[in-house]
């Protein structure tokens, strides 16, 4: 089969010049001109191999270290009705970080469950350190030195760190739990790999980053030499990501092999020595992290050219739809305000983009506008009238649509049907309701309209929301929130984690609504989306709006610099932009 070839100049691109420091936050700042290209760590394995190969990955010739740590050959896994993995082949060299990237639902997790012995492949073989193995359960995988760190932590909060680590394989001395021996071994492990954590501390007192180190220690304690990390950065703030990457480099230096599953391309390119891309259940190629760009990787992941976010001619009017003046939100007893002095205006037909490193007050800003979180000062005006005292339901009724940041937690009732989800947030209005009664017929009819207009791929409206793919769930939410003619739309990460088709569709709907006079507050971590889809950009940093920019003239690099406050505090040694993370190892 003919596959596209990626021809790239060998060696790091020129803009890496001057970025020599190895640790991410520092290099991040030094390389601020191109914030989304990270230098490879000098001297790490994988540097010498240049090009991205588009051929199905031929197993790398065994390096001096001997056979590859893990080799998967032709793995196929079928579930009734679907083929989750088909003919997957790739190999991981010992002592490297190998990233596995792919869209949601591409089959990464299925593959890793196969490798961890949670189910058996229908076809294909696995070999570890050169010898073929068959896993009947995770215990078999652990026995040959494979350990898995799950995305969601599996720790008992009310136990201490060392208790959590030994749980399930407790060392026994003279018939009793050998607490001292266990702690000594854990402390030694922690010391060897630089996984700083107090083994006597209660897990409930630990931050997310420390909990993750405990999870890693748990796996190491069981003798793992090959670590599978499933989306390890999903729950971390940037500074914690840096710490994690530091730990991973130490593990690598000690000869451990790491398989890193992610879809955050910047991070993958920072930490990985080699990248394998999976699309629709099969491997489509490997890439060299130092030679490939995000866009190229993303296009490999989705198999087509990416849609480009852009707006057409300006539709901005003079009518102010949303006006925030001096809004302040307290951060709870004893802590500083999470939002202060927020002044902003959005006009009809205008998209205002909010740029910021996550955790700088975006969520609180949305909550304050939606009335989910009370404001401690200032005023919120919608179309000229003060709504600061209104409930969330009242604000929604006065014409605010809300695409929440986390569709599973806030946007949907996963076990409810599509038409029940159509009612959510619109319980007090037609067509979902008549007075205090639910209008089932009208709600169903309107759900069908949304399914048709917004191209929600579903066999019907009686299925649960959980059974749809992420992109289709999001299209349903967008369709719902644009119903009943809102005047203001709060779009928080509207295209996060959706496939490119859905992304293009959602952008198109935003453009159309803007042309029809909707005012949109757009929050996104995707700078391309922000710059392309906004009429005006505002940067939020540590709970304050620090500047307004014209998206036509700003580059992602400049915006990235503004987001981290670079130049604002030139003397600070601590990494910028992660002001909220309090954890320092």
């Amino acid at each position, binding site marked *: 089969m003919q596959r596209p070839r990626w021809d790239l100049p060998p060696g790091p691109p020129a803009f890496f010049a001057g970025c020599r420091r190895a640790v991410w936050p520092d290099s991040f700042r030094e390389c601020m001109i191109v914030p989304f290209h990270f230098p490879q760590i000098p001297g790490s394995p994988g540097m010498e191999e240049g090009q991205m190969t588009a051929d199905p990955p031929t197993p790398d010739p065994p390096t001096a270290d001997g056979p590859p740590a893990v080799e998967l050959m032709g793995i196929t896994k079928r*579930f*009734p*009705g*679907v083929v989750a993995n088909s003919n997957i082949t790739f190999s991981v060299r010992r002592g490297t970080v190998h990233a596995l990237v792919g869209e949601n639902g591409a089959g990464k997790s299925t593959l890793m469950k196969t490798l961890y012995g949670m189910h058996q492949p229908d076809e294909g073989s696995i070999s570890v350190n050169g010898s073929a193995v068959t896993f009947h359960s995770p215990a078999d995988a652990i026995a040959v030195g494979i350990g898995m760190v799950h995305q969601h932590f599996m720790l008992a909060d009310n136990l201490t760190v060392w208790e959590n680590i030994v749980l399930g394989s407790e060392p026994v001395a003279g018939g009793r739990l050998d607490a001292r021996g266990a702690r000594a071994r854990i402390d030694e492990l922690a010391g060897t790999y630089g996984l700083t954590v107090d083994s006597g501390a209660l897990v409930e007192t630990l931050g997310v980053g420390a909990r993750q180190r405990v999870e890693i220690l748990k796996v190491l304690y069981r003798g793992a030499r090959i670590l599978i990390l499933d989306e390890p950065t999903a729950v971390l703030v940037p500074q914690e990501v840096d710490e994690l990457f530091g730990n991973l480099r130490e593990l690598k230096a000690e000869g451990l092999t790491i398989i890193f599953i992610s879809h955050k391309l910047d991070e993958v390119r920072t930490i990985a020595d080699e990248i394998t891309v999976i699309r629709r259940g099969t491997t489509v190629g490997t890439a060299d992290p130092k030679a490939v760009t995000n866009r190229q990787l993303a296009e490999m992941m989705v198999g087509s050219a990416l849609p480009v976010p852009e707006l057409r001619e300006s539709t901005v009017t003079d009518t102010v739809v949303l006006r925030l003046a001096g809004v302040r939100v307290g951060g709870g007893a004893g802590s500083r305000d999470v939002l202060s002095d927020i002044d902003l205006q959005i006009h009809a037909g205008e998209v205002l983009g909010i740029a910021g490193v996550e955790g700088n007050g975006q969520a609180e800003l949305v909550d304050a506008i*939606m009335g*989910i979180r009370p404001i401690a000062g200032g005023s919120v005006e919608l179309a000229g009238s003060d709504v600061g005292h209104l*409930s*969330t*339901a*009242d*604000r*929604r009724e006065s014409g605010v649509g*809300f695409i*929440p940041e*986390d569709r599973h*937690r*806030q*946007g*949907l*009732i*996963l*076990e*409810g049907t599509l038409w*029940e989800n159509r*009612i*959510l*947030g*619109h*319980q*007090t209005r037609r067509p979902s*309701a008549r007075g*205090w*009664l*639910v209008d*089932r017929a009208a709600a169903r009819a309107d759900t069908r309209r949304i399914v048709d207009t917004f191209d929600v*791929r*579903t*066999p*019907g409206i*009686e*299925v*649960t929301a*959980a*059974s*749809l793919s992420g992109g289709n769930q999001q299209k349903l939410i967008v369709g719902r929130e644009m119903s009943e003619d809102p005047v203001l739309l709060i779009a928080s990460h509207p295209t996060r984690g959706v496939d490119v088709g859905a992304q293009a569709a959602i952008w198109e709907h935003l453009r159309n609504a803007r042309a029809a006079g909707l005012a949109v507050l757009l929050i996104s971590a995707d700078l391309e989306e922000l710059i392309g889809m906004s009429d005006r950009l505002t940067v939020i940093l540590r709970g304050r709006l620090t500047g307004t920019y014209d998206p036509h003239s700003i580059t992602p690099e400049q915006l990235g610099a503004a987001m981290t406050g670079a130049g604002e505090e030139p003397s600070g040694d601590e990494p910028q932009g992660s002001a909220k993370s309090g954890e320092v190892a």
Partner: protein
Amino acid sequence: MTGSRGRRILLGAAAPVGALAFSMLITAALLLVTGHNPVEAFSAMISALQRIRIVLGTIDQSAVYYLSAVAVAIGFKMNLFNIGVDGQYRLAAMLSAAVAGAAWMGSLPGFLRIAITLLVAMAVGAAWAGVAALLKVTRGVSEVISTIMLNAIATFIIAYLLTPQRLAVLEGNNISTPKITEGGQLPVIEFEGSTTPLYTLVLLAALVGVLYALMLSRTVFGFNIKATGMSETAAVASGISVKRMIVSAMLLSGAVAGLIGMPELLNGSAASYSLNFPTGIGFTGIAVALLGRNHPVGMVFSALLWAALDSSANALQGVGVPRELVTIMQGIIVLSVVVAYEFVRRYRLTLEARDVARALAARSKEAAQATVSDR
């Protein structure tokens, strides 16, 4: 999707039927171990259920259980564990019995007396549940803890009030509220060959069931209850005030709990609240609601099953088997059904995800073929 409705009902029924079979299996084993004949025991129970007196008793009892189950289910639907139904109905029954038996009621027309009794019972039940609701929304007290404690407090309040100096009268050896006089009770339907009549307040249970079903499926309030129960975060984002929902659901649950004692009070022969008034029905309601999965129809079946097991228990003694065997059966049913429901729930979700994937795949294949044939 055709067939999915049939499958849904089948899946829904599989768990409780399986749990019943499983519990019979375990109890049979238990009987064998203790040297009894399981066939004899089960056939004694089944033949008991063929007697009209037992059947009528089962129906009367199931109405009471059903009311209790609905009270519990209203809370369960939004993940609110009203363990205090027991205290709520006992306090409500006691106070409404005192009102119904009071001398001044005698001069009022019958329907007014019944209405007042029912309203007082609902109000007391709601008020007692409201205490837990207020504690939860203002101070964050877990309703599980507070309602359990309120049960104990209700017991003491009843003991305090049920004395001759206060609301009770001494009649022989029995202490009770004043008997409700002629006209303050509701008629019962007598059947030939049965000492047990059919309670007319079975209709009240049916009405409550219908209202509960309508509330859940047709009203915005019911939608909000379900939404809050399934995802509180989504409910908040959609504009539902969770605190307000907690208070109203708890009040409603308490009001229905107040009705639990009414069949006994207004249809029963005692016509008063005494120390012999049935207790513990609030806890039975939890089991019945669990078994019926809070579903208005499902709980009818589970209430009937529970009442049938209860009323056939005496027959066991005829064949020399302790009646506590029934309690063991009920316990096993509840334990196994909770496990079975979770299995069924997950199985249903994966089944559906697979169906959706298959339907979409088939559709895109069709579309592809259509475009090919167009050319």
